[in-house]
């Protein structure tokens, strides 16, 4: 029995998918040689000034509305002052006292049913540059190199309330948040490219306690799996400390993926925090009803609505609908398939089974799937038409995934067509019966199972190509 309760809050940074940066006209494109997407503004040069990108505000409003936030009628930008080599001005332009949005929520599924997770605030800010350490990590590096391509790329920071009660819930929250940001097309949400980043505040307290325990801040979790593992580790660590009668220290810890542990991050020499104050270079932002309404009309169907619709229109089980709508691209893939093929459940089975399995093991995003919706549907039709058997279909699917070739070509080239010729199959059936007289006897003696064995032998000889139904019929006739 657990006698402790976990309290988690997440701070998520998502890069917004604008063409240009938040305060200058440099491209936001990922990659590029270091320091080639820079200008005086994002290098923090003397005399350079920020000018706000309107699209950033629109995307922030859009994300905030999709997360059920209140949009502030007036907000502004503040300077967050601290020195770090990747922060060119030695202050980050962010929003402290007057964020663009606050007071939202999103729903997550838990084993105990749906749960509402509060969103404290959403604000806009600029990203920092990228540091590369000459050495294995920052602690052992002799020196570091700075690339400012990412400096001043627009971010929204979304801060949840401490409503999450387990690493699983945190994972579910992040999954749903990511899906919403993808559906609204404000962010790519690629954790590997850093366009989605997540920090966590986590504490444990005796079950039923009204007062939260001392929290630690976790950083450097670069995948969904890492988030869950780090939180799980931290829960155990904190409970362990409390059980030993020790205290949890208020500190920032970093997730070490290799070791699978969290480690104390040396605290910065910050005597007195960030000294936020309003940035005099930027004017306040006034967002009226009209603007909010206009942005509202651009919000597409969100994952929760889409899930409902799939369940209603296609009679999909809730589980299937949930998995398919958890990613915008997967849902889009599903939509394309359903438009071409009239068995929604069969499609769902293939997506959730074969496709996701192969994508995951190969670490490929659905957008980059080598199998197109058209090809998958073609495969299903070949199966329906009896051109290939179900087991062959799976093999063909794997081949399609590996080569990107269409199923018809694969079936043709590898000679995988199902044998449905009664004459040809009859001969094979006769051969098998001759070779296995004992089984024939057994069946005739009432052992139903013997038939399965005989059919299996035919399949083996035809390397799975025989039409199993036809083989069955032939045996029944001959026996």
């Amino acid at each position, binding site marked *: 029995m657990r006698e402790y309760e976990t309290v988690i809050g997440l701070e998520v940074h998502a890069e917004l998918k*604008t*063409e*240009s940066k938040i305060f*200058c*006209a*440099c*491209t936001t494109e990922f990659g590029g*040689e*270091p*320091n*080639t*997407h*820079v*200008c*005086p503004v*994002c*290098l923090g040069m003397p005399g350079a000034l920020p*000018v*706000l*990108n*309107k*699209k*950033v*505000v629109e995307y922030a409003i859009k994300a905030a509305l999709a997360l059920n936030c209140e949009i502030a009628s007036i907000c*502004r930008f503040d300077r967050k*002052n601290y*020195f770090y*080599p990747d922060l060119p001005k030695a202050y980050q332009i962010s929003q402290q006292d007057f964020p663009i949005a606050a007071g939202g929520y999103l729903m997550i599924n838990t084993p105990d049913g749906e749960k509402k997770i509060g969103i404290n605030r959403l604000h806009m800010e600029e990203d920092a540059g990228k*540091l*590369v*350490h000459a050495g294995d990590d*920052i*602690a052992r*590096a*002799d*020196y*570091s*190199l*700075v*690339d*400012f391509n990412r400096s001043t790329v627009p971010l929204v920071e979304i801060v949840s309330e401490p409503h999450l009660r387990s690493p699983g819930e945190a994972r579910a929250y992040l999954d749903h948040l990511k899906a919403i940001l993808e559906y609204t097309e404000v962010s790519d949400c690629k954790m590997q490219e850093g366009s989605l980043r997540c920090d966590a505040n986590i504490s444990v307290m005796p079950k039923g306690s009204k007062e939260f325990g001392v929290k630690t801040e976790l950083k450097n979790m670069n995948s969904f799996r890492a988030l869950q593992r780090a939180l799980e580790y931290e829960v155990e660590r904190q409970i362990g400390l409390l059980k030993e009668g020790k205290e949890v220290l208020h500190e920032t810890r970093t997730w070490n993926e290799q070791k699978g542990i969290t480690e104390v991050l*040396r605290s910065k*020499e*910050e*005597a*007195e925090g960030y*000294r936020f104050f*309003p940035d*005099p270079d*930027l*004017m*306040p*932002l*006034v967002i009226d009803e009209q603007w909010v309404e206009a942005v509202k009309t651009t919000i597409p169907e969100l994952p929760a609505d889409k899930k409902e619709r799939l369940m209603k229109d296609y009679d999909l089980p809730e589980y299937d609908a949930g998995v398919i709508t958890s990613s915008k691209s997967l849902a889009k893939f599903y939509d394309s398939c359903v438009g071409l093929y009239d068995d929604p459940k069969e499609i769902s089975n293939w997506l959730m089974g074969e496709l996701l399995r192969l994508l995951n093991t190969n670490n490929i995003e659905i957008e980059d799937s080598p199998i197109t919706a058209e090809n998958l549907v073609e495969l299903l039709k070949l199966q329906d038409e009896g051109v290939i058997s179900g087991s062959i279909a799976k093999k063909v699917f794997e081949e399609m995934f590996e080569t990107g070739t269409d199923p018809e070509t694969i079936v043709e080239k590898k000679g995988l067509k199902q044998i449905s010729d009664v004459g040809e199959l009859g001969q094979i059936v006769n051969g098998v019966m001759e070779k296995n007289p004992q089984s024939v006897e057994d069946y005739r003696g009432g052992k139903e199972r013997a038939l399965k064995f005989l059919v299996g032998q035919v399949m083996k000889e035809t390397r799975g190509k025989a039409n199993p139904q036809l083989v069955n019929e032939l045996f029944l006739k001959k026996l």
Partner: protein
Amino acid sequence: MASIWEAVKRSAISANLDVSEEELDIYVQRIKDIIGTMDELRGISTENTEPTVNVLSAQNIFREDTVWEGLSRDSALKNAPCVEDGQFRVPKIV
């Protein structure tokens, strides 16, 4: 007395200004002098007064989301004291 000295010393750390104790004494003295005039402000009634962050009443000044050519890498790095592989080099961080 001591508290302002300590506070200014903390400020020097925050601002990454390396000042000796003797320099700090001078700065603290100057700060005390000028804080005296600033303390006069505290007596002024500003209850219903909005702060002025910027005198302009303008709001919602934007640029459109279009990309312009920035600096070449050479000009970006030209003024840097230390460069390696097209990047700005800094001494070890920790």
